[in-house]
């Protein structure tokens, strides 16, 4: 539990809490961006360069822009004047605590940590980009292709939804 980890973890948690509880929707989105950047910092602190930069490129550079555009294009008005906490907030906290405990127990009892502890703390394999590329092309090529297919399907679907229908006739009788 080194000092950089503590600082980054605090920043991430604080940003995540702000993303939940701020009134203004765009402020929430920006706080979410900070939380995602905090995650990227955690990856970098673990010497996982590729994953850290990919996290920034994908999440901060693309997903955050997507969220922001969604807010931009679908804003119905100014920030709502309702209460920040919904009525069932007690139950919400209970369920989230339960899920957190379950996840924490699963991680702490997993095989990775046991192997890590046995082999010594500084035996983390240095995964260079070349190794990641090799693994993607040899060991994990099927998941890669399936993901590619999924993304292509999503893109084609989005284009079809956004495309205007060719034979749409409006009220004045002229083809549009």
């Amino acid at each position, binding site marked *: 539990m080194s000092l950089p980890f503590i600082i980054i973890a605090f920043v991430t948690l604080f940003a995540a809490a702000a993303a939940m509880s701020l009134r203004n929707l765009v402020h929430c989105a920006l706080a979410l961006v900070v939380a995602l950047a905090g995650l990227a910092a955690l990856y970098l602190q673990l010497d996982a360069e*590729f994953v850290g930069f990919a996290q*920034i490129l994908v999440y*901060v*550079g*693309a997903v955050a*822009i997507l969220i*922001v555009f969604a807010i*931009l294009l679908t804003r119905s008005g100014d920030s709502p004047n309702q209460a920040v906490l919904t009525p069932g907030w007690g139950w919400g906290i209970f369920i989230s605590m339960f899920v957190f405990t379950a996840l924490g127990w699963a991680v702490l009892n997993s095989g990775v940590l046991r192997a890590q502890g046995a082999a010594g703390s500084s035996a983390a394999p240095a995964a260079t*980009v*070349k190794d990641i590329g090799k693994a993607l092309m040899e060991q994990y090529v099927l998941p890669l292709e399936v993901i590619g297919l999924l993304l292509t399907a999503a893109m084609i679907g989005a284009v079809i939804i956004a495309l205007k229908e060719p034979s749409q006739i409006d009220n004045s009788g002229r083809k549009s």
Partner: protein
Amino acid sequence: MADKIHQIIETFKQMCLVDKIDQLFVMLKQLVLACVPEALHPLVSGMLSVVLVLSVFPGVFAIITVIERKGLGRIQNRYGPNRVGIPFTKIRLCGFGQFIPDGIKSLTKEDIVPYAADKIVHYLAPVVMLIPVLLSYAVLPFGKNMTVADFDAGLLFFFAVGGAVELSVFMAGWSSHNKYSLLGASRAIAQMISYEIPLILSAVTVVMVVGSLKLVDIVAHQNVYSYGIAHWFVFTPWGLVGCILFFIASLAESNRCPFDLPEAESELIAGYFTEYSGFKFALFFLAEYLGMFAIIGLGVTLFLGGWTSPVSFLTWIPSYLWFMGKVIAIVFVFIWIRGTLPRLRMDQLMNLAWKFMLPLALINVVVAGIWHFMGQLGHEQLRWLVCAVIIFGSYVVLGRGLMRHQKLGKRTYRFAE
């Protein structure tokens, strides 16, 4: 004969301490580090490199703003600024001191924040724009052994921090509480994300051929000379197309003419930074120009050989001078383009990105692969012809496709005649 020349050059280099001049900054850094305790070495080393970058590039920015105004003036048959030299004296210096009063003006202007604007986001937007741009200078190799931080995935780092710029554009446009700023910001973001794809795809061709994301390795790959000419990637068919696509996309990424719709004065006043005045505007301006230098630096590293010299008998010129010279030459070309071409409309911009540059970039990737494997199979000479034909053919076809819907001719009216 060739290695006799080589020998003469080597002795000349040793005589004139060329290597020492080349490694001047590296040696200075070692000198300072020797006076510092061991534990502080990483910190001090990083800080020294950062100080060098932060002092050189804003200075280059200041001079380039004056050169741009004078260059545009000469293209437009007029003088540029030619009065201000050294302030408070009569020395004119052909107007190169213009950036001093410009800086003072932007510092002393009143900082107006709209009443309904979101104060925190409005304040943070220029900062969020400037920081990723400055971060991206960390991976560029300015000279031999002169990279601030040589990451394993250096190229990916550059594009990752480039993506954060779009977030700041949105913050600027939305926080101004001005529907025209918001429209300008949406257009700017749409333009930037559309042109990121050809940018990254043309960089991918280089990565494919080199086999590594480290920028230092990419430059080392181009530091090979045959017949006295360096193996820059721009001298190959796929490299030439990749270079041109990269620089066109970098024009769009830095919102420069002919892609400066988001910030042009005749459109939406100034787009997403309409509501900014004084120093915040100066910060946006600074961030835009520094971003332009960084992306040109990356293009030079990827395609134009970074800090290497094009011909083998000019390697005695220090490497950082080559790098800066190339960057400034490309900046001159950008200024030239700015003075020549009219602005593209939003739909023309988008058409160019998605219907022309993206297919051409994809075909370029395939051609780079063909090049690599034909080289491995032994057809060194034939691959030039094959790659050139494929690229030229696809360029002509895509160009025709782009121009097909343009009705260039006398205008006809449906109802008026």
